[in-house]
């Protein structure tokens, strides 16, 4: 135990003397929060809409002005025909092309059936779908206006009106949704990279051999690498949270204590993994490759962008051993919903099991001899 204190003293002295570390500890959370939180949004706005109007009637002009008046669409062109429309889609100058056929106003007047044609660039399926939905709802509004003004039907058409309230994030603010997730990414990156690189660097320089030839115990050595970065991780989490409060006015519904307790368990898991990876690597380059590979998978599968519930079953099963997935869920529940200990107990237990497993793995895999 006393040996561990000497090792810790050494680690903290080295961290304190490394000007890069001090800067990274402060700058990484600030930059990540200030850049990623506002940048990552799923809101689809200002869709580029091109309209080919073969009808050129007051009716078609009214429809176009309704579309351009909405905040979702920006009229980006008026191609003369089908070929021009295709070109705009190909070049990316239009996301959606609306074609108003020349019999549109006649159809509205009751001669035939009015039709519209919509072509959507669906490379990004989500934005194509959203754009389509916005367009359809505007056309439906327009349709209602036409019916009412024509007097064909009474002004009060009975219908079901759905009024919705969005719980936990009433304004559908994507920042609120992303920020808890970005905090997870922040401490994952800090913990995994800093701790892993630290140990591999000692391998590269050769200082680790001098440590290996001493009677120091493996758990003491691993603990001396975990504890400093555990503290740094929690510090950065607090810093990130403060930035979230100040810059984005993020709500915090749940218990801060619970939030930090979960993050602490998570950090032990991530640091265990980092040190396990570093036992597999003999150079910093190798470590970075391994770490980058796993961090990418962990983050993308964690449910930060897409709900993990809609992933294939095998992916959901993978998430049982993905610490990032647990904290991603826990953070959002605690911060936005105010979930309490009982609501997240299962995830917390699972995360604790992972943390113990990864730390054990790191200690066992560490070789004091080659």
């Amino acid at each position, binding site marked *: 135990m006393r040996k561990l204190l000497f*090792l810790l*003293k*050494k680690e903290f*002295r080295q961290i304190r003397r490394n000007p890069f570390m001090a800067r990274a500890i402060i700058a990484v959370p600030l930059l990540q929060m200030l850049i990623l939180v506002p940048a990552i949004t799923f809101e689809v706005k200002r869709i580029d809409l091109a309209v080919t109007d073969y009808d050129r009637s007051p009716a078609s002009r009214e429809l176009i002005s309704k579309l351009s008046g909405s905040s979702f669409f920006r009229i980006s062109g008026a191609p003369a025909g089908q070929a021009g429309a295709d070109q705009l889609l190909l070049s990316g100058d239009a996301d959606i092309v609306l074609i108003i056929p020349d019999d549109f106003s006649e159809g509205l007047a009751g001669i035939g059936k009015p039709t519209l044609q919509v072509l959507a660039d669906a490379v990004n399926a989500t934005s194509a779908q959203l754009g389509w939905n916005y367009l359809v709802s505007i056309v439906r509004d327009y349709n209602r206006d036409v019916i009412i003004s024509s007097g064909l039907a009474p002004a009060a058409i009975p219908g079901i009106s759905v009024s919705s309230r969005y719980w936990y994030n009433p304004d559908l603010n994507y920042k609120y949704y992303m920020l808890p997730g970005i905090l997870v990414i922040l401490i994952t990156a800090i913990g995994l990279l800093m701790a892993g690189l630290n140990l591999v660097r000692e391998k590269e320089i050769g200082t680790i*051999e001098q440590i*290996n*030839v001493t*009677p120091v115990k493996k758990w003491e050595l691993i603990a001396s690498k975990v504890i400093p970065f555990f503290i740094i991780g929690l510090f950065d989490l607090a810093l990130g949270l403060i930035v979230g409060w100040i810059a984005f006015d993020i709500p915090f519904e749940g218990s801060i204590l619970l939030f930090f307790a979960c993050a602490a368990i998570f950090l032990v898991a991530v640091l265990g993994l980092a040190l396990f990876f570093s036992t597999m690597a003999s150079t910093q380059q190798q470590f970075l490759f391994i770490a980058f590979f796993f961090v990418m998978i962990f983050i993308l599968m964690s449910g930060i962008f897409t709900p993990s519930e809609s992933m294939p079953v095998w992916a959901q099963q993978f998430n049982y051993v993905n610490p990032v997935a647990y904290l991603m869920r826990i953070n959002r529940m605690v911060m936005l919903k105010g979930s309490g200990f009982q609501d997240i107990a299962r995830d917390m237990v699972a995360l604790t099991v992972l943390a113990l497993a990864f730390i054990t793995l790191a200690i066992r895999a560490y070789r*004091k001899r*080659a």
Partner: protein
Amino acid sequence: MEKEKVIEVKDLVKRFGAFVANDHLTFDVYKGDIFGFLGANGAGKTTAIRILCGLSRPTSGKVTVAGIDAGRPEEIKKRIGYMSQRFSLYEDLTVSENIELYGGIYGMTMKEIRPRREALLERLSFSHYSDMLIRSLPLGLRQKLAFAVAVFHDPEIVFLDEPTSGVDPITRRQFWEMIYETASRGITVFVTTHYMDEAEYCDRITIMNEGRIEALDTPAVLRKKYGTETIEELFVKIARPKTETA
């Protein structure tokens, strides 16, 4: 008088795949001796020293260090000091912080470390360097300090792996004075080198070539046996024919 053996090695073999780095080494090292382990680069010296220090596992053979079998490396580690070929003090720690760290790892308390550290720095006339980062010291000083740190906890045996490679002749001389001083404290010194002139400073030497021990005795006896003036000539005589056909 039968001297006490502190290292006993019998039929030590270390293979890396098909490559045999140590081919049936057998030797003993006596307490308080300066034991020289000589050989060209790649002769298998470092491999052997790493096995003796518990950093590497022998493929086969019997190895006992400080009375403990090589199968219990952690017990051996408590009783030895080691200075590796690659410089391994922490460059971003000061002289006194490095001493403190290694003293602490070997189980000393701050109370025990402080007076010993003062005495050591005094003896090496390093006192004015004590708060300087290792990074800012010249190589010769660093090597001497690394050696001092390796014996700071009073081990039974200290292993020095090419401690003088790359340092100037004056520092080498001073380094050997430190080795003598250490041996006179009763600490057995096991030193590898490829400087043949250093062999003369040892009590006993072995000459390794291509993983095998070719000669083992005191420098004087060996010179006589092979009829050469210096160990260097002797070494060339032993190593030359084989390396040329290799």
